[in-house]
């Protein structure tokens, strides 16, 4: 599904991502762990187009993504969530959802001026779909509120729901469980498992190993810009390099 080969990115003298090879299969839930500064978020930013990789290739179903701009990449079915939720505060929750659903045709101003009634109809139809998703995520009662009233965890949920509005085939999540209370973590786990049921492939950066244990089929360990190893959570725990690089001691997690 998603194949990275020899991906490199450096900032001046600092090599943040140093020749990463990585393969995510269709329908998989893959975790990406590693200490702070390992290059995980840089890797994400390269894949989603925010940063231009220095070398290497990124292919989504055989299509090269390296060099494309972020909106082109997300239109090809690769969506992302941000470490710190990036919902638009001065906009209602429902409008935030629509922002994820509308394509170039929907957002054309000329089209709107010529046929505003048709545009409104499409908007209401998408809003209907959005309400369905918001209900699943337990946010429907907040649909018409400014997003600024949401709690941190609700922002995370909205970020996930918003990504679903794009109908992605693969979703890259940057620390979906960070700063979220334990009850909500359960909620997020359920939603992510639902996503897999819908056929969405997931690649997840996460420090919370207990969280990953519950959903990830495979975990890759990144340190100093390279992938150290990959395997199931159990296998990873046995791995000496990982223990040295990240876990510190076996009791963690």
């Amino acid at each position, binding site marked *: 599904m998603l194949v990275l080969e020899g991906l490199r990115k450096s900032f001046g003298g600092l090599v943040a991502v140093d020749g990463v090879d990585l393969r995510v299969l269709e329908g998989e839930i893959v975790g990406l762990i590693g200490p702070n500064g390992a290059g995980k978020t840089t890797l994400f930013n390269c894949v989603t187009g925010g940063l231009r990789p220095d070398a290497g290739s990124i292919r989504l179903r055989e299509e090269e993504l390296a060099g494309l701009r972020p909106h082109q990449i997300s239109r090809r079915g690769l969506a992302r969530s941000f470490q710190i939720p*990036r919902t638009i505060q*001065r906009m*209602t929750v429902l409008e935030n959802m629509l922002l994820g659903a509308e394509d170039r045709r929907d957002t054309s101003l000329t089209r709107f001026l010529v046929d505003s009634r048709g545009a409104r109809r499409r908007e209401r139809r998408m809003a209907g779909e959005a309400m369905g998703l918001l209900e699943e995520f337990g946010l429907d009662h907040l649909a018409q509120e400014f997003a600024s009233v949401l709690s941190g965890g609700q922002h995370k949920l909205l970020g996930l729901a918003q990504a679903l509005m794009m109908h992605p085939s693969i979703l890259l999540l940057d620390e979906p469980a960070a700063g979220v209370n334990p009850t909500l973590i359960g909620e997020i786990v359920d939603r992510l498992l639902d996503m897999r049921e819908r056929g969405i492939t997931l690649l997840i950066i996460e420090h919370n190993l207990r969280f990953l244990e519950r959903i990830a089929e495979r975990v890759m360990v990144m340190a100093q810009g390279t992938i150290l190893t990959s395997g199931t959570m159990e296998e990873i725990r046995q791995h000496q390099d990982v223990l040295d690089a990240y876990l510190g001691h076996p009791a963690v997690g």
Partner: protein
Amino acid sequence: MIDFLVTAGILVAFFVILASGLNLQWGLTGLANLGPVGFFALGSYVSGLVMIPPPEVTGFVTDTFVISLGLPWPVGLVAALIVTGVVATVIGWMLLRTDTAPLFVAVITLAFAEIFFLLIITQKWLANGFNGIRGIDRPLGNLVEFGTYERFFLVVMVVAAALVFWFVRHVEASPYGRVLKGIREDPAAVAALGHDVRRFRISAFVLGCLVLALAGALWTPFVTVVEPSAFGTEQTFLVWAVLIIGGAGNAWGPLVGGLVIIGLIQQGTRFLPATGEIAELTVRLRGVVIGLLFILFLRFRPKGLVPERARRILPEDP
């Protein structure tokens, strides 16, 4: 008294248009255009040059213009919009990348206005330097009686302002406007949601500049003179004050701001008892009062008199 109200009304409509143009850029998209007066002047000059007959016809034989076509006002208006559209597209294309810092937009647009101003006053061959373009005919001037021309022009301005208001209302309430508001708050997030931030920013910038140029092209035939002194930096400040005090990010803001700042404070103070020292004082204090209000609003009510409201969409049952 009536004539006074007519003049005030014209100025209000005029500033409503200018602030609406800036509203598309700053209010909706977060592009801090610090040179609105430059685009206003550009529209004014282009329409003036298209409308002015050659110097041997006007009688001002020492005047020099790069072009002087003597064409009717609608042609001048269209020419003003086309030229401004091209200039704004070039500036926007060079300036507005996804990660452009707001500060650069401010600096470059300010520089544009200053450069334009310098070009006009130093290059006399362009548009007659300091003396400007004189002797433009008022459109329909032979049909409308001279004494009532201002009233006629008030109607024109109010219709133009209403059209601009209608346009901004539509932009604001459209999916297009939603993307603009998203870009204003977080361009990278909007790009991640599949929208071409650069394209939206450039188009919003160009649309705003076109509205500013429209105001310029309306101004030219009314005053019949286009001269550099009319396009000082204080005009930029006034447009910003109208937008911020009225309320940015919604179409009503510029309307209310225009009525309050231009109608009530700038023009309304002319009705105060004007004798001796007081008369002089009100003139001097006018700008100070607007400046103070501007600062107070920025500090205590940055949302303005009419804050931006949430847009409610009635979802269809799935």
